């Protein structure tokens, strides 16, 4: 059964001039870890705010746990957990005071649901008397997650929980999400980091308010229509220029250590031909290998 459903949701700002969410439909199953992947300004936060009843959609309808986001907004508000993108706890209250406050706002106590947050809370417990504003970025996120979980929500909305958090904390954070999923909580998470997409069960790629594709990360990768190759040489910026000038190359994108390319006519000949041309152009230590595309490759492909 779907816990979160959106049908043709449209949201505009500035009296219709800016289209933030453009006819978006998707659904999240009960107990699923669903990722909304997209760059900044893609419309992720608007979708979250519509689902958490903070914004009204221009058209379309949506429901969370079977409650309509417009009519039954009060029911939604008492049953979901929401963690906004910006750290939104009281900076001048201590860790413990924040947690106690949010527990009583949701008519519960820390004791009652301690088992749910225990794993996360033990990590920040040594700092429980510290003001929330003085915590590090990773700690803040953990505290915010604890506060969002304190009332044992059925659905958890996490808007860019890992933005501005270091790599280690990010990894820890995703492990926490996996454990929460095992408790049967439906989780909708958004992130601009493509590498985090594979950690979700299903993802929706979103760009300029439109959904590009919805599927499991594996399926999205499988749907990549061509063979993808990675090229490397000593002078990477010259290599990029040369590759882009070459008519045999269909697409070429810089990807850190390698440039990812696809060929117009994908066969052994064209590969050898390319290496030959590059050698002629004085490139050294040329390396060309076949790779499986990443989510980011798929995203770029879908964007064009």
């Amino acid at each position, binding site marked *: 059964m779907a816990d979160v459903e959106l049908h043709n949701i449209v949201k505009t700002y500035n009296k219709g001039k800016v289209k933030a969410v453009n006819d978006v439909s998707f659904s999240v199953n009960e107990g699923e870890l669903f990722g909304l992947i997209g760059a900044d300004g893609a419309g992720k936060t608007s979708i979250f705010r519509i689902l*958490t009843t903070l914004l009204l959609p221009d058209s379309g309808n949506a429901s969370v746990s079977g409650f309509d986001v417009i009519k039954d907004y009060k029911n939604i508000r008492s049953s979901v957990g929401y963690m906004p993108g910006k750290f939104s*706890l*009281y900076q001048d209250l201590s860790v413990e005071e924040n947690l106690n406050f949010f527990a009583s706002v949701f008519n519960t106590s820390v004791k009652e649901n301690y088992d749910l947050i225990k794993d996360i809370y033990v990590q920040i417990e040594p700092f429980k008397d510290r003001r929330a504003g003085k915590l590090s970025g990773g700690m803040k996120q953990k505290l915010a997650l604890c506060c969002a979980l304190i009332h044992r929500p059925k659905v958890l909305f996490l808007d860019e929980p890992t933005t501005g958090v270091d790599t280690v904390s990010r990894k820890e954070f995703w492990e926490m999400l996996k454990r929460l999923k095992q408790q049967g909580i439906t989780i909708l998470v958004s992130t601009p980091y493509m590498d985090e997409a594979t950690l979700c069960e299903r993802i929706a790629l979103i760009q300029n308010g439109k959904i590009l594709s919805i599927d499991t990360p594996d399926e999205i990768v499988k749907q990549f229509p061509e063979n993808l190759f990675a090229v490397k040489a000593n002078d990477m910026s010259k290599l990029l220029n040369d590759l882009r000038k070459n008519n045999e190359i269909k697409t070429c994108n810089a990807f850190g250590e390698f440039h990812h390319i696809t060929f117009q006519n994908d066969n052994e000949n064209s590969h050898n031909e390319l290496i030959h041309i590059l050698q002629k152009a004085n490139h050294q230590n040329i390396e060309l290998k076949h790779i499986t595309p990443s989510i980011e490759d798929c995203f770029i492909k879908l964007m064009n």
Partner: protein
Amino acid sequence: MKQFLTFVRKEFYHVFRDKKTLLMLFGLPIVQIVLFGFALTNEIKNSKIVICDYAKDEATQQIINKIEASQNFDIQKTLFSHRQIEEAFKAGNIKLAIIFPANFNNDLSHLHQAQVQIIADASDPNTANTLTNYATAIIMDYQQELMKNNVVPFRIVPEIRMLYNPELKGATNFVPGVMALVLMLVCVMMTSVSIVREKENGTMEVLLVSPFNPFLVIIAKAIPYLLLSIVNLSVILILSVTLLDMPINGSISLLFAESILLIITALSLGLLISNVAQSQQAAMLISLMGMLVPTMLFTGFMFPIENMPVPLQVICNIIPAKWYYTIVKSIMIKGLGFSAIWKETLVLFGMTVFLLVVSFKKFKTRLV
């Protein structure tokens, strides 16, 4: 209920942990009272004057003694010729000159009429006016003393009596004004800023997505400021009674009740501002411009409302502080009871209800 109390406690944490706000909350009224009480008073003390006495007789000497004894005047010099007066004014710091003609006492005892000339530096008309009044009062005073001792023919002496404030003390006028000012400022600004802060920090977003009733958020926010304002009010009253010899002739509990009514008016106004303002700065600016300036200008404690053109007098009526100012003056200075101020109270009450209804109607249970 437990929910609500936790919320109120949280608000107290916010207030007490923000040292700057706390300083402003309690420093402001003290500074205002001290400033208005000592520095910005409209009483004029120790103004430098010169006296030119051609008579040098018993009568003029007695008047001069009286002037010397007065706190308002400080006799700088006694001149021998009126030609020096112009020079003395030009030299700058002389505000007033008093000239007694020759045969002053003679005229007074035989003709029952004598003249004295008072020349004031009217480049500052208000000061000149006040000073000539002081001087006239002293001379009148002397004249009355004479009447007591001598059997002089019947004559009409204009009697000036200052009702309620016989010593023309400035404090009686401005303490009610400062009370209105401080209560308006603290309550309006603090509530609007603290609600907008929740919006700005994003905590409002989290609070909205909770079963907590948004109206309770607002009421919980108002309670600490209500209590703090009452503390503030007590501080102002204690200061003005002990430091400025301000009387409280009426009922103190009635004074507090009326003050609480104004505080609630101010809190609802703050709430209304917080609905409109998107940032703490904007909230602060609106409350300052919308509260401080009109309260200073239009309550009548700085500029008499009677002197204003009719359109401004109409504006005065929509300023809550104006009504409160009248109420406080009636209670504190005139010692009147509720029967004398029920009209003003009703107006203030009406404003409060109106503001509360509008701000609750405008309160957004969603973002934007």
